[in-house]
């Protein structure tokens, strides 16, 4: 069963109801969400998208596209994958939605034969750069899943090609379009949490992070489980952490100045090359630290970004804001007094005592950042993408968010590999 998400229109209406319209104004890229209908309803105005890489993520993008494709006058003109089962599954999704895209096994055919307005690249990480740069050369806009590329040089080359071609490059950091984050970031930037001292972020799972191979045939191992091999991926860093570094940078409105890290293969010693246990510290110029860890042999703490200021804390993934001022715990004696008064009892108030309190964790249970959180941030990002394509440009800040997150993710990998605290080399600064 398809999950029902709020559309862009519902999202805007809810923002108006909850009084969070200021959020729109505070996030320049949300101009794409301006409350105007999609323009260009004619066949010639249809935005043509191609999905390159139809694995799990590519197919998820496809499903979300179809939740608003009709209203937005968008179609999927082609699909591309060199793994036939994935391509067939993606084609089936299109057929269920009444769309018959062309199919290719080489992305260069997408560029030369289909010539879409934009591509959604959801291939393995190491293939992002080549496809992206070739698309830009052909004048095609690109939505590229995070992280941007496998190497620092490829990441820079993608950014340079985006600038040189004047084509849109949106990186798949969907939290940039997530209403919880938008509202929370607004509060952080307005100073509601006070001075941010530390960001703690983590992503914990308890599984081997493997995908099943067709007929358990090992010849597909590196193609299907590319995330486990350093040639294709930096593992937990590029596939998970990059999202959270982007969130940390966004919250602090700056990029780090250095990173140090350590990692190991602690539990899943099954021939994989990437670490299953990582810990990094990112330092920012103002002294703030982002302390990051990820592991895949315990899931008790799950996934979170904790933005910690001297006045409060925001935990984005669980949609909660906490105050350092504990307003939830009532002194028992005071509660007794209130109860006595309401019951017309006049009795002594046994509350006196030394009130020194140890520095224990604040007991505040927190409040939701926004009430209605039934939406898909990826769908909202894709809707925005379509509007960017019609307009012919996207806010550069969006691209820079993705670029800096990708660069600092890979620098984190280098820091782990070298055992050194690393700064960003001059040539990667944009």
């Amino acid at each position: 069963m398809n999950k029902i998400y709020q559309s862009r229109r519902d999202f805007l209406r809810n923002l108006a109801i909850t009084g969070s319209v200021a959020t729109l104004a505070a996030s320049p890229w949300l101009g794409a969400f301006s409350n105007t209908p999609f323009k260009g309803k004619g066949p010639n105005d249809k935005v043509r998208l191609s999905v390159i890489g139809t694995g799990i993520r590519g197919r998820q993008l496809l499903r979300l596209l179809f939740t608003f494709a009709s209203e937005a006058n968008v179609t999927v003109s082609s699909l591309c994958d060199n793994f036939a089962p994935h391509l067939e599954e993606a084609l089936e999704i299109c057929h269920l939605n009444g769309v018959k895209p062309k199919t290719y096994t080489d992305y260069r055919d997408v560029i030369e034969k289909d010539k879409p307005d934009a591509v959604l690249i959801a291939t393995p990480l190491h293939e992002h750069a080549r496809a992206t740069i070739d698309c830009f050369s052909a004048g095609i806009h690109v939505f590229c899943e995070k992280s941007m590329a496998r190497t620092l040089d490829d990441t820079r080359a993608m950014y340079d090609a985006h600038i040189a071609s004047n084509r849109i490059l949106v990186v798949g950091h969907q939290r940039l379009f997530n209403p919880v984050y938008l509202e929370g970031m607004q509060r952080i930037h307005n100073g509601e949490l006070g001075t941010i001292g530390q960001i703690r972020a983590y992503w914990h799972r308890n599984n081997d992070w493997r995908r099943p191979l067709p007929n358990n045939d090992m010849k597909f191992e590196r193609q299907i489980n590319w995330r486990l091999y350093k040639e294709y991926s930096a593992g937990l860093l590029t596939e998970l952490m990059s999202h959270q570094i982007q969130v940390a940078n966004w919250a602090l409105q700056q990029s780090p100045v250095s990173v140090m890290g350590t990692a190991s293969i602690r539990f899943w010693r099954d021939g994989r090359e990437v670490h299953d246990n990582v810990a990094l510290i990112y330092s920012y110029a103002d002294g703030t630290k982002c302390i990051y860890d990820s592991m895949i042999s315990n899931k008790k703490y799950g996934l979170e970004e904790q933005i910690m200021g001297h006045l409060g804390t925001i935990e984005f993934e669980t949609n909660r804001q906490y105050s350092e001022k504990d307003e939830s715990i009532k002194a028992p004696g005071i509660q007794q007094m209130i109860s006595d008064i309401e019951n017309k009892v006049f009795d002594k108030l046994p509350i006196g005592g030394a009130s020194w309190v140890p520095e224990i964790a604040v007991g505040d249970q927190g409040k939701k950042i926004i009430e209605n959180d039934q939406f898909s941030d990826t769908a909202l990002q894709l809707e925005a993408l379509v509007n960017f394509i019609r307009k012919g440009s996207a806010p550069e800040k969006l691209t820079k968010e993705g670029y800096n997150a990708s660069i600092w993710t890979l620098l984190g990998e280098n820091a782990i590999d070298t055992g050194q605290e690393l700064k960003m080399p001059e040539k990667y600064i944009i």
Partner: protein
Amino acid sequence: MKSSDINLFHRSIGAMNSQLDIVLWGSQTSNFEAAFQTISEQTTHYEMVLSRYNSQSELYRLNQNAYKQSIEVSNLLWTAINRAATYYENTVEYFDIAQGRLYHKIKQGDEDSEDKIKHGWQLELNSTEKSVRFANPHVLLDFGGMGKGILLEGIDNILEKFQIQNSFISFGGSSVLTRGKHPHGSFWPFSLSGKQSSLKTWELNKHSISVSSTRTNNSRKNKHIVNPLTGKSIEEEITVVVKASNPVDAEVLSTSLLAAPKNMHRIILSNFDINEVDIFENQ
């Protein structure tokens, strides 16, 4: 009086590493929320001036820099420091805000702090410039022994301004300010908590009460009261309760009587105008 006629108002906020409970009742209900908001804002402001733990506070910056150079301070901080100077004299040096570093060391378990004590008032105050300079690098100002009283004094002014007639304001049960009376009696009846509740009931109208004890709610941290003249923590289990008309007087006195030896109590008390003092030992 019917319960529905009481118009009871209760809010809590965190302040001074404690909980501030604000209980109001009476006919001025339209003023309750506004009074609370004003109290809340003033509390935040006072903490930003007087907290020694908050790196953004004025006191924190003063503590960082006032040994190196003379620092001009705000009216609030200037007034607080000058009052502390008066209390230093009136308590025969048993109340000394400048010994924050010593208090901290004792709390951390450093029993060998006697040699670090600097006797005499360690602050150079310039009343023309309203500036402060520390006489030695060991000085660390700590308003822990009077900060809640200052806050309560400020709250009393707010309640007066908003014409709140009946109130019970409590800082975690250790510093209390009352106005008027309990809805069902002619005073607010106050007692100690736990096993000490049967010791006495204090009758409060327009009063302040301060409770200081060598015992805390954390047995590992028993040694948190220090004799500033000897640098030794107070080992005995003592609770001091001071009822006064002024909350700062009450708080300073309850702390000082805990820190000072018994033979100094009469001298210290002679410098204060207070209602009742009770000292409980080994309870």
